């Protein structure tokens, strides 16, 4: 009897020892994720962050196409508007914040962290840092004060609630980073290869041009706030390499799988949805005999009939209850309305990050106020010319416009002025850069957008900024409240720091 008990006790102890010692060692090893590595190549992250900065649905389609491009009167909603407000802020703005911070920025920041302080990775760091500035500037231009200095530290620091920074600080910081990044770029050192560098194809001097152009854009934005900073940046840039042709423009290569967002927004399968070119844009192009009219717009299907005009836009800010509504055949059948030009509706139509023509216009503005040597009129004309040629360079000969036509058009324009520069810039951004058009409109109040009846739009017709996402007022409440008390009420009519008009 006793021996049996001893035996069984022995068995018990043995089994326990087996389980405890035998398996415990393996336990932690078992929790190493075989599906996802704990390190990766910065190249993969870089490619991803470039793509996500541009390609996410909400930033491209929901916010930019359905929001900003409507506000900037490139598009108008065929469905009319509620209560006279064009600016129903698309739900995509919260998603944009989330996608930019937690996806594009988070991953480009990983590249920066991996390469920072490593001389052999200086070029990789500099390019990633330039892209980080690009992404941040779009955010701060939309919201004003945003988390910047403490942002993106969740993974590294467990900081879930970053403070908001004043826009002035953010801008000065970004300008500084761009300067350092540009100086750090060294063509003799290693860099990402062409396949990883989706936008500059591994060409370091083009990254330098990108940094310089972006720096000029940012400095110009704060020109009226900090004139001396502006002047010194322009002076510093005058000796640096700049984008000097359409071919050197910084673009994003869309393809058949990641289609150009205008295509995505305007077409699903074969059917046109939601938006058509606005009356404001159509009228401006037609009235000035703009050679880009037939490129930016496609004739309405019914214009085969002689009495139907080839181009007709949808009025912005038109109420469905307004009597003018009946002038527009928008309830279901819109055969006499123009479509977006076919150039935009190709899969591979590139996304514009910074174009040569924008650089020309920025230079024209600098020359106009004397910060830059040279002829403002010449820079301005270069910009117009460059933009008109752009569609041929990134399309084919069907989009070519003769020099004579361009000359005639340019001659018909009033001499260079702020309004002329920004008007042309606005046309050059049509259907391709809603963010920049919206920022420049707020900075300069040009072009003078008008309602469908020709009246000026009033103060509260267009938002001056985005309302912070709900996630900020709940998850980062303390800092959110600080930002609100510093910047002003969290509504769409509080102007941000650089917006002085």
């Amino acid at each position, binding site marked *: 009897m006793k021996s*049996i*008990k001893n035996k*069984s006790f022995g*068995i*018990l102890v043995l*089994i326990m020892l087996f*389980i*405890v010692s035998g*398996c415990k060692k*393996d*336990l*932690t090893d*078992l*929790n*190493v*994720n*075989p*599906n*996802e590595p*704990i390190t*990766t190549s910065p*190249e*993969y*992250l870089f490619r*991803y962050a470039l*793509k996500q900065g541009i390609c996410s649905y909400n930033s491209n389609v929901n916010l930019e196409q359905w929001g900003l491009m409507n506000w900037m009167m490139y598009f108008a909603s065929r469905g009319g508007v509620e209560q006279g407000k064009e600016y129903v802020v698309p739900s995509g703005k919260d998603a944009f914040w989330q996608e930019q*911070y*937690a*996806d594009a*920025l*988070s*991953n480009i*920041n990983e590249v920066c962290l991996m390469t920072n302080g490593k001389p052999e990775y200086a070029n990789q760091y500099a390019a990633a840092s330039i892209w980080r500035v690009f992404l941040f500037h779009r955010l701060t231009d939309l919201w004003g004060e*945003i*988390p910047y200095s403490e*942002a*993106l*530290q*969740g*993974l590294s620091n*467990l*900081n*879930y*609630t*970053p403070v908001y920074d004043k826009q002035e600080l953010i801008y000065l910081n970004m300008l500084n980073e761009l300067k350092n990044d540009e100086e750090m770029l060294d063509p003799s050192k290693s860099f990402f290869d062409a396949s*990883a560098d989706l936008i500059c194809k591994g060409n370091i001097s083009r990254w330098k041009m990108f940094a310089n152009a972006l720096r000029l854009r940012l400095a110009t934005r704060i020109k009226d706030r900090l004139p001396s900073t502006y002047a010194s940046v322009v002076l510093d840039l005058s000796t640096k390499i700049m984008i000097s042709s359409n071919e050197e423009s910084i673009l994003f290569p869309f393809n058949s*799988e*990641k289609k150009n967002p205008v295509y995505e927004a305007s077409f*699903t*399968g074969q*059917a046109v*949805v939601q938006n058509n070119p606005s009356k404001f844009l159509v009228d401006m192009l037609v009235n000035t005999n703009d050679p880009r009219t037939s490129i930016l717009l496609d004739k309405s299907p019914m214009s085969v009939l002689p009495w139907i005009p080839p181009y007709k836009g949808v009025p912005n800010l038109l109420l469905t*209850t307004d009597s003018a509504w009946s002038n527009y055949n928008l*309830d*279901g059948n819109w055969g006499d309305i123009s479509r977006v030009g076919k150039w935009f509706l190709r899969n591979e139509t590139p996304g514009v990050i910074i174009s040569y023509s924008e650089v020309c216009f920025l230079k024209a503005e600098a020359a106009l106020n004397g910060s830059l040597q040279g002829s403002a009129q010449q820079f301005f004309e270069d910009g117009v010319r460059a933009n008109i040629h752009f569609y041929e360079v990134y399309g084919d000969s069907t989009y070519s416009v003769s020099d004579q036509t361009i000359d005639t058009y340019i001659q018909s324009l009033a001499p260079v002025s702020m309004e002329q520069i920004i008007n042309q810039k606005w046309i050059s951004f049509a259907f391709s850069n809603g963010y920049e058009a919206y920022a420049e409109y707020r900075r300069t109040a040009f072009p003078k957008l008008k309602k469908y009846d020709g009246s000026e739009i009033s103060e509260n017709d267009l938002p001056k900024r985005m309302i912070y*996402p709900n*996630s*900020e007022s*709940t*998850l980062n409440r303390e800092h959110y409240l600080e930002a609100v008390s510093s910047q002003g009420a969290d509504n769409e009519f509080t102007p941000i720091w650089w917006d002085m008009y």
Partner: protein
Amino acid sequence: MSEIEKMVKVKRDMRKNLKLFLFFTLLINIFFIHQSFAQELTVSGIITDKNDGTPMIGVTVKINNTTNGTISDANGKYSIKISNPNDTLVFSFISYNTLIIPVNGQSQLNAVMSSSVTQLSGMVVTALGIEREKKSLGYSVTEVKGDMLQTAKDVSMINQLSGKVAGLDVASANGGAASSSKIVLRGNKSFTNNNQALIVVDGVPIDNSTVSNAGDKWGGRDYGSGISDINPDDIESISVLKGASASALYGSRAANGVILITTKKGKASKKIQISFNSNTSFDTPYILWDIQNTYGAGRNGKFEGPWIINSNGIPVFDATNASSYGSWGPKMEGQEIIDWDGKQKSFSSQPDNYKDYFQTGMTLNNSVSLSGGKKNSTCRLTLADLKNTDIVPNVSVKRTNISLNAGTKIHKRVTLNVFGSYVRQAYDNRLGLSDAHNNANRNYIMMPRNVSNESLENNLMNTDGKEQTWYMNWAWMTNPFWNEEYELNNDTKNRFFGNTSLTIDLDTNLSLIIRTAPDHSLQKFWSRDAYNGLISSLGSYSEKEIQCDEYNTDFLLSYKKEWEIFSFTANAGGNAMYDKSKQNTAETKGGLNEPYIYTIENSLNTPKYRSLLYEKAINSLYFSGQLAYHNFLFLDVTARNDWSSTLPKGNNSYFYPSFSSGFVFSDLMNLSKKAEKIFSYGKIRASWAAVGNDTDPYRLNKTYYVDSTDTYGTIANVTTVIPPENLKPEKLVSKEIGTDMRFFFDRIGLDFSYYKTNSFNQIVQIDVSPASGSNYALINAGNIENKGIELQLNGKPVDENNFSWNFILNYTKNKSEVIELAEGVDNLQLMEHWGLSIEARPGHPYGDIVGYAIKRDANGNKLINENGMYLRSDTTQVLGNINPKFKLSMTNSFTWKNFTLSFLIDARIGGEMFAGTDMYGYGYAGNFSETLEGRDAWYASEEAREAAGISVDDWKATGGYMADGVYQTGTILLNGENNPESISEHPGYYTSGGYVYDQSHNVVGTDLSGISNQTFVNPEKYWSQFSDWTNEIHEPFVYDASYVKLRELTFTYKLPDKWFNKIQMKNFYVSVYGRNLWLMYSKVPNVDPETFHDSSSGQGYELYSYPVRRSIGFNLKFDF
């Protein structure tokens, strides 16, 4: 009158009438005198099974209140010496009702044992498969006999438990036959874990996970859960262990309770016994929409919107440019139209097109089992086959189960038991749910009432083979008949699970069980989007394979010792669990290269392959000890330590104990015999337990997701979840008290429990500010409390020779409260879709329904703007909560001679749900009857306005829909105006004392602020204001989800055995049954109040659900 005669009389009266019985019990027992005869006597007899009359081997026979006993032999015979002829014998056997028979001086006493339906007494299976006397437990266990599951069958066995156990919530998702069910005991205890009970078969956990995105909010498919692989004919009994004490020994995975399934074993008998069970049932759609059949496609009551009037003045439906859904057009009065299919026809309603889309489903379920054995070896083999065709065409499932249960004594001290079950299932075309493009309900909700099934069916495709439907402006509206024909999917499952155990009697008091249990399954899926379909013109094809392997190896050492007044039981054991799951997926990219060839190789671009592996292990040691004093006071202690692979070093070992005690106070009260007849048994119990819990694998480190198939080249992105710094195990603490009382010779039983459970340190994925660079962080946080009452009342009020009545009444009340979320977190979204979310909020019960409401004034009146439309609340609000106030269910069973009628009525009172079907059926589409109100009047008013040539602004509508509410502040009516306006449009005007004044202080109008709405609106505008995309108002579609249902009804006739004597057939039962027969009470229009979105966190949310399947079936059972 002798004592015996008195007793006989009592019993006779008792059969007559319960009331009389009560009376006489009281009266006669006044004269009852307790006597004892000091004399030794041997009692012997045969114990047989009531069910089939066979002798029962191994029945324990004990003299009541002593430890003296014996066991029946191979012929069912027993013999026992008693010292007192007035002693009572207790016959007990696992899963059978314990019989208590007074000897009354007889020397021959035969006992007929029956398996219990009323669960009044006997042994129950508890944690680790240990059989224990229910009396001795310090916690609540509810047992359901296998018999209760073997007649009115459902394709998923677990759904049959619904309403049968207090505290158990079985909710089946809306995905058709064999879709997943959510099995929750005593409320949701965890924010993000699945909250489901652990399923244990013969002492070993089995995999009950739900594969892939079951009913993803964007419209996935539901692939069912593992428990449906169990054949109900294999089930001897199910024990439901609700509290943490009951399940503490199963550790982490049992934190949400345990469903313990004991399989049927072979029985020793002279010849092989063969049982047949054959089931045929027919399913029809139940709870269909209340659809209007008056108005057809169009807008504003006219041939507008999708219509174009051709040169002959005939309206033509333009499917490619259709810009609106539904039926807001003119009355369907046979007008001449050209339909979307290009055919000229009359504009008329299709009243049955939705109903006719469905067919009668059919389920055939046959099983045969062979059972037999000798004294030392038993064996049972079951073969079952199931075929189901759904009410949705082209959807079917086939399932075959083979199971073997064998036991043999390989040595006088060593018994070997083997159970193995093999399941093979093939499913064709799982249904697309929710927003899936191939969800037929979604199509029919939007479809104008004049579109005929015939037109859809005959025009699936154009001459180029491209899909066509009535609406082709937007690819997400598809043709339901195309879908069932071409948008196909299939999945198959091969699964083997079972266990082998060796029981070694080391000593009379000491035994060791060593057990190993594998659970392997291999599931294969393919799915395709048809080439030329609207959703994907180039088509797509994908394949997936999931292989799961789980091994549980354990040992258990049991020691028993009895003394005069004490008995002691101890169990000590260990378990090693290893779980591995491997997934391989392959999918085409960019569409198909060659049309109509659905293979991975035919991908247009490089196909995408992905392989995933998950591994997890938990090692455990545990101990349980029980001390019994005089067999009426019991004290239990359990302790368990787990080592989990998923937690960080230092925190991956965690210990948790439990204590419970049962006290049979009626034994101590020394009740007189007379009192015993009224109050026969009373017990109180109390327990305290803690359970730890781990998490999923691979959550501790920052990782990168690498995708080498991206069109731009290999990309990688960092995880969007911030990993925890020092993750601790979750902890659940549960307290329970309860009583178990029986009255009138055990004919009425009352089981009551009160429990309280707190889950601390939950491993929660919280939302964080995206500005941190991540969307989520994994942390330990929170506290959810669940407390509640469970009451089970059962009894047999009538038990005559020819007639008996049994009932079980279950009452469950669970109160849940999220006491705390993570610091600084106000809410946690469990699910979100189209602006409506299901959330956990501190201070509220788990599962708030949160969405936009109609804005109200301080008095709670709904606010209306000057256009007669509602104002939307500024922010989202809590609109309801998914938790019911209580649930009540009652099973009644009446037996008259050979007939038995039983039915189950199930009720849920309180709690809300959001019905998306209604939001869109009313709002987008105007297809439900409720949207008819005001249409005629509005169209008449508009006609009059147009005739008078008056503009909308100057016209006061004479009819239409008038929303219930009051005008918002600032609504005015100027003199001479017909319609209210907003004062903000009239700068310089002001209101005071109910009037409007101009700058010269002249009265120019009336202030309508706060006055009841008097503006008629177009019903089309009224209803669509709620479903307006990104401006949704959800409130009107959050309904009280209370219901009363006749869930199950069975009528059985047992054919007399003598009819079949010659062919040796017996126990021939014929039954007719119905399931989901009658929704007796509901406040939710158009949909089943019980339907829910998915089996993860989608409870309380409904969207485009399929109708309930109402089944009527026949069951045949007989034995040879």
